[in-house]
């Protein structure tokens, strides 16, 4: 199976040949890859080097935490990659963005109002949790569409808070 794997704009063409072999950009490597005790912790021995990483599934990518560094990794098989190319690259920029509560907490303030235009990085909402106030920011520019909560509300994890269109 052939994959196109992208890290910070850099593409690797990776083919999984069998349990013990992959090729990276055409170069075949012997790999020994195991999950450690059923946890999302993985050990890879390749070319004698021993690596260990946490690998978490993100919304649209994988997050690989390796030696104290986080690599956001997009893995697509060739078919997916072609589809995405055909439909234009603006996946992240188009469609509605729903801001969800990353953890349970208390809404402290909502410095935006419906219909307001926001820039990428603008603070949309302040959520208190674990004695800390956390600013939730807009991942892109847009217009505030629907605010579903108000200051003082307690919210559950993943609860939808507002949308940016």
């Amino acid at each position, binding site marked *: *199976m052939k994959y196109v794997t992208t890290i910070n704009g850099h593409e690797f063409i990776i083919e999984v040949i069998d349990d013990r072999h992959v090729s990276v950009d055409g170069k075949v490597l012997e790999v020994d890859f195991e999950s450690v005790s059923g946890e999302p912790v993985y050990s890879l021995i390749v070319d004698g080097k021993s690596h260990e990483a946490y690998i978490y599934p993100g919304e649209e990518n994988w997050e690989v935490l390796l030696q104290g560094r986080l690599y956001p990794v997009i893995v697509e098989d060739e078919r997916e990659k072609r589809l995405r190319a055909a439909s234009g690259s603006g996946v992240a920029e188009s469609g509605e963005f729903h801001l969800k509560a*990353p953890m349970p907490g208390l809404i402290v303030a909502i410095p935006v109002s419906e219909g307001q235009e926001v820039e990428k990085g603008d603070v949309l909402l302040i959520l208190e949790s674990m004695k800390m106030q956390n600013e939730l920011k807009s991942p892109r520019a847009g217009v505030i569409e629907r605010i579903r909560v108000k200051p003082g509300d307690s919210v559950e994890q993943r609860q939808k808070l507002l949308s940016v269109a």
Partner: protein
Amino acid sequence: MFNKVLIANRGEIAVRILRACRELGIETVAVYSEADRQALHVRYADEAYLLGPAPSSESYLRGDKIIEIAKKCGAGAIHPGYGFLAERADFAEAVIAAELEFIGPKPSAIAAMGDKAIARATVTKAGVPVVPGTEGVGNLSDEELLAIAPKISFPLLIKATAGGGGKGMREVRTLEEMPGLITSARREAKAAFGDDNVYLEKLIEGAHHIEIQILADRHGNVLHLNERECSLQRRHQKLLEESPSPFADDDLRRRMGAVAVKAAQAVDYVNAGTIEFLVDKDKNFYFLEMNTRLQVEHPVTELVTGVDIVKEQIRITRGRPLGYTQDDIHMTGAAIECRINAEDPYNGFMPSTGKISHIIMPSGPGVRVDTGVYPGFTITPYYDPMIAKLLVWGETRGQAILRMRRALEEYRIVGVRTNIPFHQTMMDSHRFMGGQYDTRFVEERFSMEAIEEGKEIHPDIAAIMATLVAHQQTQRAAHVVRRGERDTSNWKWVGRWERMHR
């Protein structure tokens, strides 16, 4: 003399105090909220009593209930830890009124140091320098401010009396620019707080936050255990502390120690306490505040001095004279503490909650971990996000840094995100290694993305690993469809699957 102690706290500090009691042969009583039934302090204590629902106001802040439990179970003393009720003079008072020992200072000392204006006045009278400024003087007019400014000397800060968070704050470098800055500061303060009063404070440039640990017994003996460097902060939260301070020298250490002892004596201080100072780049230092309790970062001092501060607190409360004189206190080697928080350094240090499924704790020579969590424990949003303190000792600061680096690398916590990568990045920072940092370092000159020269990165390895995980997932998904639901052998990998997506 009491032989049973109630610990009015939770998390790592409750466990820390419990350990000290156990090593002194003292019985322990834990209290807990409904969210903490399985917490380590409940499991380790000899006795445990439920306080109430998860929110602190209904549990760990219920001083009345805590005193009632202590009386009922026959505890002779209460240790408040830090946070919660630790610096509430009224609680200390109530404990004493109930004829229990309070493992901490007298209520009067807590009260005196708890009010900023009183504390400044008290220590000033004792000859302790405070940050020059007009705070607490009253509301001053523009003319008065302009007249006082040269006496404080430039640069200085205009700050909103009602303020906070930088609103209404202005940096002033010359008298000439001051009138305009006062006007704009007042306008901003008025808009933000409905109050346009401002005061002046000397701007300490390149400031270090350095604190002195104090021990004082009931027989008039006061001594200090030297300094802790606490300048690495983010949003006024300390992240990493070390002792000795790479910035301090023996002269500064001695001067600050002597002043700290004076400050403690000024309020008739008993038990363990900490005097916090701001130190400028010319090694002038100014009293900030006194923490009238055990400090989170007390173990760095324990590692370099060999003094068990919590045991000393208990001995002091038992009426014993200090087991040390100032001459007995020496610093050997260097210690560093990294606060391990359940928060994601790649996502604005957002707190992370959930069940911890797996832990590998670093250990071996020179490593200490103070923690209140274990595999299977759930981090709730009710309490603060600090889940462990990772400490190392080394013969030199350089060796301590290398040891911390290997300990951070060994530490595995699965189930919640942690700030371990932040500390790893810090340990690789050339400025940190050189001891070249001040209180603004983390917020202004530190980045998780910046790669120090010579640091290897492995995007190819990350790419291979992510691809293999994605591949396995695809294979498994295909497998499910083929096998159908009834096959019991699916259970095994479904379990794995679920764990992966937790």
